């Protein structure tokens, strides 16, 4: 039933789009079929896949960097109040630094290259991951810590069976909000300093005032990200929470 509503609502959006296109003219808002043809052109030439691939690779790299560094720093800050007091203001500053400032600084300081692009995106996501994981580390169950201590569990057993399962919901939350943040910022980074990727193509479309090309990149990209969210992130969230719903 849910699916029916969802499909109906998407169809309604297409109809509104078509009406809007008739009203504003195809130059401002090309009709759906024309955009679909543009997608097909880009796919045939292979450009669509090259650019999507480049963007996805950047998303993956910066996401992985932000989540792994965020997890480690977050756990350390959550477990050690002294460290937390020192680093907390840095995290707050980073959290409030506009994405654009980080991107420009990265390109100026590191150069117009891949390293700068990926670190700029990762740095944008990092404070958010730290804060989320730190919350999880603060909520770690002290009673279970004592069990581990009394039974002399090894550090690796503690990490795998005690800490990670407790942090998993927080990591999943960080991953979920992280992914949507990262892929938006990746486009900006590409627009400003890369010569391929969806963001770069959108920049080209902007200069040529080619809305058809712009949508031909934007829509497949949104679909790919939605697919990743639905088929990777959400199943992961359900997986880490499975023990909560175990029936009697």
């Amino acid at each position: 039933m849910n699916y029916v509503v969802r499909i109906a609502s998407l169809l309604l959006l297409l109809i509104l789009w078509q009406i809007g296109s008739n009203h504003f003219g195809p130059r401002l808002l090309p009709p759906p079929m024309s955009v679909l043809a543009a997608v097909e052109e880009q796919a045939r030439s292979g450009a669509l896949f090259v650019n999507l691939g480049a963007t996805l690779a950047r998303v993956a790299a910066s996401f992985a960097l932000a989540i792994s560094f965020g997890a480690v720093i977050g756990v350390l800050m959550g477990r050690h109040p002294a460290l937390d007091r020192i680093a907390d203001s840095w995290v707050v500053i980073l959290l409030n630094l506009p994405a654009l400032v980080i991107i420009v600084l990265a390109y100026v300081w590191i150069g117009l290259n891949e390293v700068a692009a990926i670190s700029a995106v990762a740095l944008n996501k990092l404070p958010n991951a730290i804060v989320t994981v730190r919350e999880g580390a603060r909520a770690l169950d002290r009673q279970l810590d004592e069990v581990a201590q009394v039974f002399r569990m090894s550090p690796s057993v503690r990490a795998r069976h005690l800490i990670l399962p407790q942090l998993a919901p927080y990591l999943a939350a960080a991953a979920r909000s992280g992914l949507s943040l990262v892929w938006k910022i990746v486009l900006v980074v590409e627009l400003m300093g890369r010569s391929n990727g969806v963001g770069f193509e959108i920049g080209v479309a902007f200069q040529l005032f080619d809305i058809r090309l712009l949508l031909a990149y934007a829509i497949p990209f949104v679909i790919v990200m939605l697919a990743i969210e639905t088929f990777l992130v959400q199943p992961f969230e359900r997986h880490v929470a499975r023990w909560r719903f175990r029936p009697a």
Partner: protein
Amino acid sequence: MSRAGDSDRLEVALECLSLPQTSGAARQILADVGFSLAPGEVGALIGPSGCGKTTLLRAIAGLVGVTQGRVRLPSGGRLGFVFQEPRLLPWRDVETNVRLAAPDANDGDLDAIFTALGLSDHRRDFPASLSLGLARRVAIARAFAIRPDILLLDEPFVSLDTALTLRLRQELMGLIEARSVTSLIVTHSVDEAIALADRVLILSSRPARLIADVPIPTPRRERDGSRIARVEVEIAGHLSAD
């Protein structure tokens, strides 16, 4: 008692134990508690509520530091602890919970422990699906699985009904006797202390001192075998079968 035997005893000689309070000031919990348990001996710790029984167990387990005095565990030093709450990992099943605490346990021994505690059918269950009685059993199984040299139990039967308490008592004592594990049980019930222990250690109110060390003269088997105890167990059996 021979010298070689002495190293197998649990020796507790505490002169002072203070814990920091939320206000920042330290508060003395234990004043003067000294006793020792021979191998296989079962002690029951009893005293007014809030007197520091749990803190004493935690000090023996090394979970809180002793301000003055010392604790010596029996040689081997493997310590099994049954907390008042079962404290199981909710995201791991029953058997994994036990095995994580006792990675060296062999399958035969685990089978025996699970059977003795009636857990054989629950090995793959997750803690959320267990009743309190079953969860307590898992916590007990975990403590036995490490083949403890000393077993500490903090009110292992609290908030269970009478029928369940009596059955679990029998299962627990069966395991303690079969393996002759030196054990120290915190309880608030005099009945329970008398039923389970070889010696009852009585603490004063806070800061706690050991005010009496009362040996139970009747062997445990005969206590269980008394006609009243048999009727008690029979009634409990009927109740729990219901």
